[in-house]
């Protein structure tokens, strides 16, 4: 029912009762994945952990398993495909903080990815004349620099809303790309070769983290991804997460509930930017080379498509969306040239049949935890109709 309902006819007792019964049954979002989500929520905590452990083990084993049919070979190296999927998943998790949690449409997210990439390259590549630091140190540094840029962009622009914010972020994405072209120190199209990598040498004398071997990079990336997921999950359940959901749903209402909306929006932007920077640094290290070519608007749109496809506001959905968006063109090389066409069609179809993405978000009862929520839900299912009739009598 919309919030702008006009006056309704006073219903008779039976219709009233039907409406109460209907509305007190919590609406479950239908579709293919809904029973899965229900089944997951019914599992006990230890069962969920055990299941997650299996998923994590499979995730780590993925590049080694090289499952037939799923594998992207012979077209593309499978471990590198896995790596691309993991990096896209990480990007999607970061963008999901901005778009999914706080509801801020960011069309220039690639800018933070670029900032992270350039930070890693300029601190490690022999082509860069500046201070050199070990590669692993560039990960937190890239995160911090990207967060700084997030705040820098956020403070003047987050007073804007909706479409206006989207336009400004779109512009910011282009500004970063163009700066990379015109600032001599950023070396435009020539770019930076031999971006650093973590230490370690294999038995044959080559570094473990070489640019041709995706597996160690993949492991590093999903380890980072798991850490970020744990942090994001905690944020989601905290006071900050509640504030974000409130801002996303109704910014004015959030403000008059005592939520400092501006502060929390800047935080969402900064945290999202930090994760974007981190994935940029990982990507730069794994590829070993960056120049100004990869950071265009299309890439931003692709990132956004990953979040929307997976289910905006759901971090598991973001991982799925990111992985799918990276996987499809690498697996089906014949269609790679048409990937934007195909993603466009897929998104249109998805918006018609599943507007909330593959795995829609449903925030838990934020303040009371799962157990209390289940209890309340069970009680309201069991007791509501009779209790409702009682007050119906007294209300009149």
């Amino acid at each position, binding site marked *: *029912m919309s*919030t*702008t*309902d*006009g*006056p*309704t*006819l*006073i219903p008779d007792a039976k219709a009233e009762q039907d*409406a109460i019964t209907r*509305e*007190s049954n*919590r*609406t479950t979002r239908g579709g293919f994945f809904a029973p899965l989500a229900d089944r997951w929520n019914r599992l006990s905590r230890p069962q969920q952990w055990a299941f997650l452990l299996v998923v994590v083990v499979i995730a780590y084993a993925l590049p080694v398993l090289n499952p037939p049919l799923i594998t992207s070979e012979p077209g593309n190296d499978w471990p590198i495909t896995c790596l691309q999927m993991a990096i896209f998943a990480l990007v999607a998790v970061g963008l999901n903080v901005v778009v999914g949690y706080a509801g801020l449409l960011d069309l220039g997210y690639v800018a933070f990815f670029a900032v992270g990439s350039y930070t890693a390259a300029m601190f490690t590549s022999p082509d860069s004349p500046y201070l050199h630091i070990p590669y692993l140190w560039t990960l937190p540094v890239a995160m911090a620099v990207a967060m700084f840029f997030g705040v820098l962009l956020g403070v003047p622009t987050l007073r804007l809303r909706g479409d206006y914010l989207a336009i400004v972020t779109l512009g910011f994405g282009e500004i970063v790309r163009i700066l990379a072209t015109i600032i001599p120190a950023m070396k435009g199209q020539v770019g930076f070769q031999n971006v650093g990598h973590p230490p370690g040498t294999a038995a044959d004398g080559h570094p473990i983290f070489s640019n041709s071997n995706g597996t160690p990079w993949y492991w590093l990336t999903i380890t980072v991804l798991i850490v970020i997921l744990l942090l994001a999950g905690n944020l989601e359940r905290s*006071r900050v997460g*509640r*504030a974000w*959901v*409130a801002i996303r*749903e*109704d910014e*004015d*209402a*959030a*403000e*008059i*509930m*005592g*939520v*400092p*909306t501006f502060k929390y929006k800047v935080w969402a932007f900064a945290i999202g930017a930090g994760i974007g920077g981190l994935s940029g640094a990982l990507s730069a290290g794994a590829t070993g080379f960056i120049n100004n070519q990869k950071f265009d608007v299309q890439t931003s749109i692709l990132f956004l498509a990953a979040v929307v496809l997976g289910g905006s506001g759901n971090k598991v959905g973001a991982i799925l969306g990111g992985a799918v968006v990276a996987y499809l063109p690498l697996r089906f090389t014949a269609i790679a040239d048409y990937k934007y066409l195909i993603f466009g069609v897929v998104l249109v179809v998805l918006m018609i049949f599943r507007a909330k993405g593959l795995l829609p978000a449903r*925030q838990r*009862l*934020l*303040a*009371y935890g799962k157990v209390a*929520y289940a209890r*309340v*839900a069970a009680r*309201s299912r069991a*007791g*509501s109709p009779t*209790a*409702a009739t009682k*007050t119906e009598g*007294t*209300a*009149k």
Partner: protein
Amino acid sequence: MTLLELKNVSVSYGRIEAIHDMSFAVDEGEIVSLIGANGAGKSTTMKTISGLLNPRSGSITFDGEDITKMKAHIRVVKGISQAPEGRGVFPGMTVLENLDMGTFGLKDRSGVKAGFDRVFSLFPRLAERKSQVGGTMSGGEQQMLAIGRALMAQPRLLLLDEPSMGLAPQFIRQIFSIITEINQQGTTILLVEQNANQALTRANRGFVLETGSITHSGTGKELLANPAIKEAYLGVG
């Protein structure tokens, strides 16, 4: 004792002035009603008091403190809470989550439990629907939820923006009797309404707004008896 005072407040949207040189005060413990037609500046007044809009000139004091430039979320902590126009419940949150958002600004959380009990005793309907998602509720229930959520902030001054808008007559009477009950529990209430009859009957004092200025003021009874107001707002004349 004066709780809220507006002095010569003017508010504009761009070049268009929505409120012109408005002054009025609300005493502690009162119900004060602002009535007026569409576009008279009622909601603008409310948003200016809650802090969503900034006045171009004039000053607002709350409990002796100048809050003219204070951000909206800090005003909540000071004790001003608003149930916004169009209800403004969080559509994707359950009743419990919506109510809990009302406590966001509270530093001392010891009264939260009592706050839930108070809201559920005022609105038994909400107690039955704790886990229902706000967006799927009927208009009247959303209005209850919006008022309940505003009460969770333990306000000293409760701002109600058109609580009767779009409701069935039976619900309107119910909402107004609950508003009186909230007031008797010690919360000062400032109400804007198009439903002048109910609003003035329940109010200690009332003001009539026309195109951004106050044209009449007096006790609720005086205004109800005023022939000009009868004709313009009560549909009799």
